[in-house]
């Protein structure tokens, strides 16, 4: 009866705070739309002035039996940048200076010649505008795509080298400067030598000399065969084979959804619970209520329950909104509800503990923000990003506040990630009891 009357009273007070109500409605919608758009649209590419100085007639080069088209590598680079075509180096520099592009990428005319020579390193030129952040952005984008282009080129060059080695080993036709030559090859050379040696008298001094050359041909055949494998390895020295431990890995966009929902749930629950309890002190009604009208336990339960229910509603609305942009499994909706309710109750328990410690709503809101923001950052620090001892300290701090377990619960409910929902819920239950106890003590 008393609990119902108090919940009705608090809802009436909230309804009469239009800014707060607007925030509770607008906030999840705005965040859901922003996150949805961010996750469902491609990232913007940096605008880079692009000048290709290679004449179109020289864009294709012939290297051995392989044909290399340089425009293919151009396309690789365009995946990382938004090219703005320019006709001269002067125009490229002017664009970078006036900021219409953040860098210029120039492919010099001698690039095909350098590639064809196979003796010189071919290069492209990148000009930055001096802004460290822009430079880092373009540098990372271009270097990553250049590495992919280099890998493709290395693979083609290794095939060229293979064909030359095969020619040396087994012989064949060599086309060079419009003429065709018949190459004997080491294997056939060895057979020829053996045949010549067989025609010589046993006492001939030429026999031992021919045997030496024949032996060399044998060694060359064996080792040149091995060198083909070495060239193949140089083209792609390290490849990545991925394996995920601890169950299923949450895709980054789905994890971002869990983080966004957990952050919103945290803010709504902590701010509401602490604010509603602090309001009782600010209005001096706490003394009246504590005169036996409402027990401290019932009062704390009422505030925590109301904040958790409203927070869960906001979080659920966010999840539903985000599901318009990012695919989520609606069949797990019951688990979502359990996770956001448990997370909401844990955040609300922390909120009432804060509300019981302070005397007015402003102080409660400030303290709630001061406590909750660092918790988000700490909970998202990945292992390996800091020293082991610091990471252990962060793990302990994250474990004694509700953000990390709430995030794990929501992630487990939405994405079936590890640790399991059961473990996260047990953790949250322990925190609800602990912060409830702190609030009860502070209210004495």
């Amino acid at each position, binding site marked *: 009866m*008393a609990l119902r*009357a108090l919940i009705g*009273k608090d809802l009436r007070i909230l309804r009469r*705070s239009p800014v707060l109500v607007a925030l509770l409605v607008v906030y999840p919608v705005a965040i859901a739309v922003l996150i949805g758009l961010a996750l469902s649209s491609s990232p913007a590419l940096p605008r880079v002035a692009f000048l290709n100085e290679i004449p179109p007639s020289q864009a294709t080069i012939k290297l051995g039996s392989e044909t290399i088209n340089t425009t293919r590598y151009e396309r690789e680079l365009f995946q990382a940048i938004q090219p703005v075509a320019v006709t001269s180096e002067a125009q490229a520099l002017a664009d970078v200076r006036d900021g219409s592009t953040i860098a210029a990428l120039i492919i010099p005319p001698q690039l095909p010649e350098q590639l064809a020579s196979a003796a010189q390193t071919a290069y492209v030129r990148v000009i930055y505008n001096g802004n460290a952040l822009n430079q880092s952005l373009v540098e990372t984008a271009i270097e990553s795509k250049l590495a992919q282009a280099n890998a493709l080129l290395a693979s083609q060059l290794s095939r060229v080298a293979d064909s030359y080695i095969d020619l040396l080993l087994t012989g064949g036709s060599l086309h060079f400067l419009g003429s065709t030559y018949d190459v004997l090859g080491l294997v056939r050379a060895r057979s020829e030598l053996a045949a010549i040696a067989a025609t010589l008298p046993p006492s001939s001094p030429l026999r031992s000399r021919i045997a030496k050359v024949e032996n060399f041909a044998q060694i060359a055949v064996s080792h040149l065969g091995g060198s083909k494998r070495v060239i193949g390895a140089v083209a792609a020295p390290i490849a990545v084979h991925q394996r995920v431990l601890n169950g299923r890995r949450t895709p980054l966009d789905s994890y971002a959804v869990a983080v966004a929902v957990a952050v919103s749930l945290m803010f709504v629950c902590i701010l509401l619970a602490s604010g509603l309890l602090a309001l009782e002190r600010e209005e001096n009604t706490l*003394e009246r209520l504590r*005169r036996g009208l*409402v027990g401290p336990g019932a009062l704390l339960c009422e505030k925590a329950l109301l904040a958790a229910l409203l927070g869960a509603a906001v979080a659920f609305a966010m999840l539903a909104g985000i599901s318009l942009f990012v695919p989520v499994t609606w069949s797990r909706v019951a688990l979502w509800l359990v996770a956001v309710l448990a997370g909401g109750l844990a955040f609300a328990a922390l909120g009432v503990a804060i509300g019981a410690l302070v005397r007015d709503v402003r102080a409660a809101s400030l303290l709630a923000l001061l406590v909750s923001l660092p918790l988000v950052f700490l909970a998202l620090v990945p292992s390996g990003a800091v020293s082991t001892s610091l990471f252990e300290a962060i793990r302990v701090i994250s474990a004694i506040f509700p953000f990390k377990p709430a995030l794990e619960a929501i992630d487990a409910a939405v994405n079936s990630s590890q640790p399991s929902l059961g473990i996260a819920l047990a953790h949250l239950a322990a925190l609800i009891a602990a912060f409830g106890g702190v609030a009860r003590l502070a209210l004495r």
Partner: protein
Amino acid sequence: MANLEARALSKRFGERVAVRDVSFELDAGEVLAIIGPNGAGKTTLLSMLAGGLEPSSGSLELAPGRGIGWVPQQTAVYSKLSVLENLRLFARLERVADADAAANRMLEQTGLADRANDEVGSLSGGNRQRVNIAIGLVSDPAVLLLDEPTSALDPRQRARLWEFIGARVGSGTSVAFTTHDIAEAERYAGQLLVLADGEMLFAGSPAELGAAEHETDLERAFVAFLAERGH
């Protein structure tokens, strides 16, 4: 039987004794003024009588059937709720059988019927205090406790408040109030209780306090009484 009987009430906060061995009786229709210097323990005593503080020792006895109404010094009302909503809420929390009827009755008695649907935050200080007192009376208590009820009111508002309280006293409600205004205590209280440093130094009528100090002016008698006892 008295409406309220306090026996050897004491309250300690750690080592500090805020109230020590206070005893008195309050009969139906009787008005008691609790006076004393700042820090004497007046609000602590009133909080114990109201049930907001647990006494460290001693006992309280209340006439069966009706409870205690409490009016704190600072208005303790929800400013975002209307006058009627505040009265209804506290009537429900006090477990009054017909909360709506009790709230409407208090609106009539306090003359706030025309402001019933106004948010309390929009009322003047005097009207807010009337709501504060109305909430204390909404359960029709046998004893009404008021902590410095007129300290924030102008003389006209004070007169109206005492007129209202007087009507309740006339119908048998016992009233205990704390005040720094000795003239107010002399005018409205039949009994005085003087506290200093948590100790009850005097219990009797205003006339008895004046006679004890051979003074016709009660304020002078009160100051002299305290001075003689080192306060």
